[in-house]
């Protein structure tokens, strides 16, 4: 029974990081009306940013998280107008071309990083969170707990922005309907850029945290992209509550399969569940998402 609860806690702690990645991704999906295939590449680049901070400077990667956020947000702000332009272009099939465009960006990022650092796995080391915390017979690594707390803080701040500011209202309106938001005087292009850059910053930070828990290689991006898709599909497109639930479910599912069935089955089960969910309930498990 201890093993079960230990697995559950481990799963929830990792699930918190998936929530951070997916919440920005889900919103960028809603506002830009494009599935960003580069989401996994942002995670991978974030992890390598942590490695770079650690090896080039004497600063602890966790202390550099705000800098990572700013750098990634700036990069996102440069890319977002291009995606917006392709999505709103007069091509025959703008949605598919935009999909192909983010796929191209993801491939570019992966190829560049593979050329630069090769296929070796790297880990981010931090001095802030070491050792384990023992509660009621459960061993909780401080590292994972710190990552979870940080992810929840970032997610909470982002939610506060969404639900307590006027700009946040504009973001939610744009995610619901670009046409109507534009008619109400929302500058859709600016909102898209803002959301995409916040999402890139959040995902880059989550990448540093993930890199400190798991070893990461330059070719791991697509795997994390599929995990983000899993959360957004399971949670339902555009549903913030759905993302919270689905992110935690993903973490727990992964941990349970790894312990009780075997690590080599984890991805097969996750992708199988994702495929089944899409077929059975494309609006997400809470049935709150937008119709497909």
């Amino acid at each position, binding site marked *: 029974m201890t093993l079960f609860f230990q697995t559950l806690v481990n799963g929830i702690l990792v699930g918190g990081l998936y929530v951070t990645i997916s919440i920005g991704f889900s919103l960028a999906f809603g506002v830009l009306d494009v599935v960003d295939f580069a989401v996994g590449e942002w995670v991978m680049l974030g992890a390598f940013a942590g490695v770079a901070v650690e090896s080039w400077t004497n600063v602890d990667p966790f202390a550099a998280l705000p800098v990572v956020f700013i750098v990634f947000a700036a990069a996102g702000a440069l890319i977002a107008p291009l995606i917006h332009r392709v999505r709103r272009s007069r091509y025959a099939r703008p*949605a*598919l071309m935009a*999909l192909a*465009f983010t796929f191209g960006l993801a*491939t570019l990022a*992966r*190829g560049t990083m593979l050329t630069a650092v090769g296929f070796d796995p790297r880990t981010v080391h931090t001095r802030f969170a070491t050792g384990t915390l023992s509660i009621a017979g459960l061993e909780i690594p401080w590292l994972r707990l710190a990552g979870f707390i940080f992810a929840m803080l970032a997610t909470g701040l982002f939610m506060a922005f969404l639900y307590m500011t006027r700009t946040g209202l504009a973001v939610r309106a744009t995610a619901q309907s670009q046409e109507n938001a534009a008619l109400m005087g929302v500058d859709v292009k600016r909102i898209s850029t803002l959301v995409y850059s916040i999402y890139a910053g959040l995902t880059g930070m989550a990448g540093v945290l993930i890199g400190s828990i798991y070893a990461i290689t330059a070719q791991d991006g697509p795997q994390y992209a599929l995990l983000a898709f899993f959360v957004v599909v399971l949670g339902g497109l555009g549903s913030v509550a759905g993302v919270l639930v689905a992110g935690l479910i993903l973490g727990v599912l992964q941990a349970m399969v790894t312990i009780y069935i075997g690590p*080599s089955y984890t991805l097969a089960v996750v992708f199988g569940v994702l495929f089944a969910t899409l077929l059975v309930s*494309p609006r997400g498990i809470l049935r709150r998402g937008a119709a497909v």
Partner: protein
Amino acid sequence: MSRTRLTQLLPVIAVVVFMISVPGWAGDYWTRILTGVCMWAGLAMAWNVLGGYGGYISFGHAAFFGIGAYATALLMQPERHWNFFLTLPVGVAAAAIVAAILGWPTLKLRGAYFAIATWALAEAIAQLATVASFTGGSSGLTIPVFQSTTWFFYAMLIAALIAYVICFVLLERSRFGYKIRAVRDNEPAARAVGIDTTRVKIQAFVLSAVIPAVFGGIFAYWITFMNPQSVLSADITDQMVVMALIGGLGTMWGPAIGAAALYILNRQFVAWFGDTTSYIALVGALVALVVLFLPDGLVSLWPGTRRLRLVRQLLPRPRSGRA
């Protein structure tokens, strides 16, 4: 035969004659590269059936390539000892059945959801092949060696030619071609004029699944050793997508031109740098640039087609377009 049809046929005849003559004058190295070009042209065309003509972007086509490769490899194991040519119909049948069964629910999804579902499906299949015992797991399968560069060149060439003729007849010279393009351009309207859209989409999915199965079978026999990484990896799907996209979606020449350009480039990168990581980066940049500036692909540079679009794209536009 009118003069216009003759001028249209001439480039096709020239390319076919050129390809048939290749083993006669090219060395071993270039014959192998052109064998790969034939294979990738066929694979990109198969993807183009669904992606270019049907408007459904699949990110899981490597699954069908892998099904064909595993069918051939498993049946040619020493204890079964099947003839190579008998294994191909088995792979084709397996791919067709999988495509028909999985296509029916999957093709109800649209746009990005379809892309994600096919990707998840292909990854799940790749993971299962890695953990299953009958596939040899990650250590893979070995096939009795048969080495003849010329034989495999002609095998791939004939398979590619047959694939192109079938696709040409079905997509450009039959009602099916109009139906699938109607589905792509406006599915509700297609249904309104009486097209059974579900059936047409499944037919297109099956057609675009059986072609990779044939190439997978020949590929397995060619490389004699295979594992999930070499025949089921997402890289294979990515190559199909990128070749069709850069060549020109929804055209006959596009996938062939994209395949020839990119595969030769790929091999040259291996020759120059010893690996293909920088090739991956270059392909990514090319895809992004093609989407931004040349959305109809390399074929649109052909004289007399819409090549001016490149120029128009670069000029400032009078008003922002609505999709």
